[in-house]
C-alpha cells in the first residue's frame, strides 16, 4: 500500500533525519577529541549528544508510525505517546546534567586532572564547526515546526535550542582554556563551561517535565478551558435539566471534555441531539481543538 504523507509530515521527518546524521558525525568526532584533550566539557557534550541522538532516533520512529497511521490501537490519538517521548527527553537530560555536575565538583576539588592546552585547542576548533552545524540544524527544525503541531516537534526544537545555546558558550570556554597556559584558568574555564551546559540542560528539562507530566497523569485542563465550558453551560442553561459531571483531560494538542447532562424525559431523541449539537458548537467556537463528548441521560 502506498503511504501518502503531507508535505509538512515529510519535512518534519526529513529535518529529524538530517539532525540525526549530523549529530552522529559530530558526536564521533567529539568523542575522539574528548579522549585526546581530557576536557570535562567535551566529555559532557559527548554524553549529552549520545543521549539526544538516542532520543532523536526514538522520536523519529514514533513520528513515522504516527504519520503512517500505525497507531490504530491508540484510540484517543498519539498525544500521550508524544508526552511520554517529551518526558523521556527531559529525564535523560536531567541524568546527563547530574553526571556533568559530579565532574565539575571533581575538577574544583582537584580530584580530576585538567586537560592539555593542545587538546583544548583541538576541541575549540571542532567546537566551532559544531556551532555552525547546530545553527543550521536549529534553523531547519525551527522552520519545520513553524506550522504549529506536534509535541514531538516542539520537544525537538526545544532540545535543539538548548544544544545551540550550549555550544556557543562551550565554544567560548574551550577557546579560553586553549589560549591559557595557567592550569587554574584552564580548570575554571572547563568547570564553568560544563556548569553552564549543566544549568541550561536542567532548566530546559524542568520546563519539559512541567509541560508533559500534568497531561500524562490526566490532570484537569487549565482554567481558561474550564471557563469556556462554563460559558457554554450558562448559555444553554435552559436546554438541560441537570449537570451531572464535567471531566477534562489533554492529550497532545487535543483537549478532551466529557460533560454529563440530564434532559427532560418528554423530549424526543432528535430534540436532545439538536441541543447537544448546539452546545458542542458553542464550545468549539471558543476552543476549536476541543473533542467534546456530551453524555445525555433523562430525568
Amino acid at each position, binding site marked *: 500500500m502506498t503511504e501518502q504523507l503531507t508535505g509538512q509530515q515529510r519535512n518534519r521527518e526529513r529535518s529529524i533525519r538530517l539532525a540525526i546524521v549530523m549529530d552522529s558525525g559530530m558526536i564521533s568526532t567529539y568523542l575522539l577529541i574528548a579522549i585526546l584533550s581530557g576536557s570535562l566539557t567535551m566529555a559532557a557534550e559527548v554524553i549529552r549528544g549520545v543521549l539526544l541522538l538516542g532520543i532523536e532516533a526514538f522520536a523519529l520512529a514514533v513520528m513515522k508510525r504516527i504519520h503512517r497511521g500505525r497507531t490504530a490501537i491508540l484510540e484517543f490519538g498519539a498525544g500521550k505517546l508524544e508526552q511520554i517521548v517529551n518526558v523521556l527527553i527531559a529525564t535523560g537530560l536531567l541524568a546527563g546534567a547530574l553526571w556533568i555536575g559530579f565532574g565539575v565538583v571533581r575538577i574544583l576539588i582537584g580530584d580530576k586532572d585538567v586537560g592539555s592546552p593542545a587538546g583544548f585547542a583541538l576541541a575549540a576548533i571542532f567546537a566551532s564547526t559544531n556551532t555552525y552545524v547546530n545553527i543550521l540544524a536549529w534553523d531547519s527544525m525551527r522552520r519545520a515546526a513553524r506550522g504549529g503541531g506536534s509535541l514531538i516537534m516542539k520537544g525537538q526544537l526545544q532540545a535543539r535550542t538548548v544544544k545551540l545555546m550550549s555550544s556557543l558558550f562551550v565554544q567560548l570556554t574551550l577557546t579560553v582554556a586553549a589560549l591559557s597556559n595557567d592550569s587554574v584558568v584552564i580548570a575554571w574555564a572547563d568547570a564553568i563551561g560544563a556548569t553552564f551546559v549543566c544549568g541550561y540542560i536542567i532548566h530546559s528539562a524542568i520546563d519539559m517535565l512541567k509541560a508533559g507530566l500534568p497531561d500524562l497523569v490526566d490532570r484537569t485542563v487549565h482554567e481558561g478551558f474550564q471557563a469556556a465550558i462554563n460559558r457554554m453551560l*450558562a448559555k444553554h442553561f435552559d436546554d438541560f435539566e441537570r*449537570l451531572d459531571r464535567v471531566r477534562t483531560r489533554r492529550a497532545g494538542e487535543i483537549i478532551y471534555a466529557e460533560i454529563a447532562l440530564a434532559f427532560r424525559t418528554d423530549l424526543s431523541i432528535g430534540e436532545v441531539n439538536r441541543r447537544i449539537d448546539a452546545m458542542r458548537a458553542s464550545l468549539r467556537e471558543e476552543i476549536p481543538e476541543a473533542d467534546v463528548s456530551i453524555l445525555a441521560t433523562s430525568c
Partner: protein
Amino acid sequence: MEVNILADGEVLILALQGRLDNNTSQQVEETLMARVPGRPALVLDFAGLEYISSAGLRVMLKIAKQSRADGGKLALCGLAPQVREVFDISGFSTILSIHTDRSAALGAVK
C-alpha cells in the same frame, strides 16, 4: 473552606468562607446538595468567599438547577469584586440572581 448554615424563616442561608476551588468543590457540593433539595428559598452568602474556580461555579450551577427543579427561589449575595468578575466572565451573572448584601437577597427570595 467553611459552610455556615443558618435559617431565616423558610429561607435557608448558606454562608461560604474561604476558597471554592478544585480541591474544595466536591466537599462543598456534597454539603450543599444534602441540604438544598426541597427548600422553597435559598440564599448563598459569599461575603466570606475569597476565590471561586470554574469547578466551584459548576457547584453553583448544580444548586441552581436543583432549586429550580424544586420550584424554589435562589439568590446570591456579598460577592467580592474578584468573585463577581468570575461570575461575569463565565456568564453566570445572567442566569443567577445576584445581590449586594444578605438583606437584599432575603428580600428577593421571600
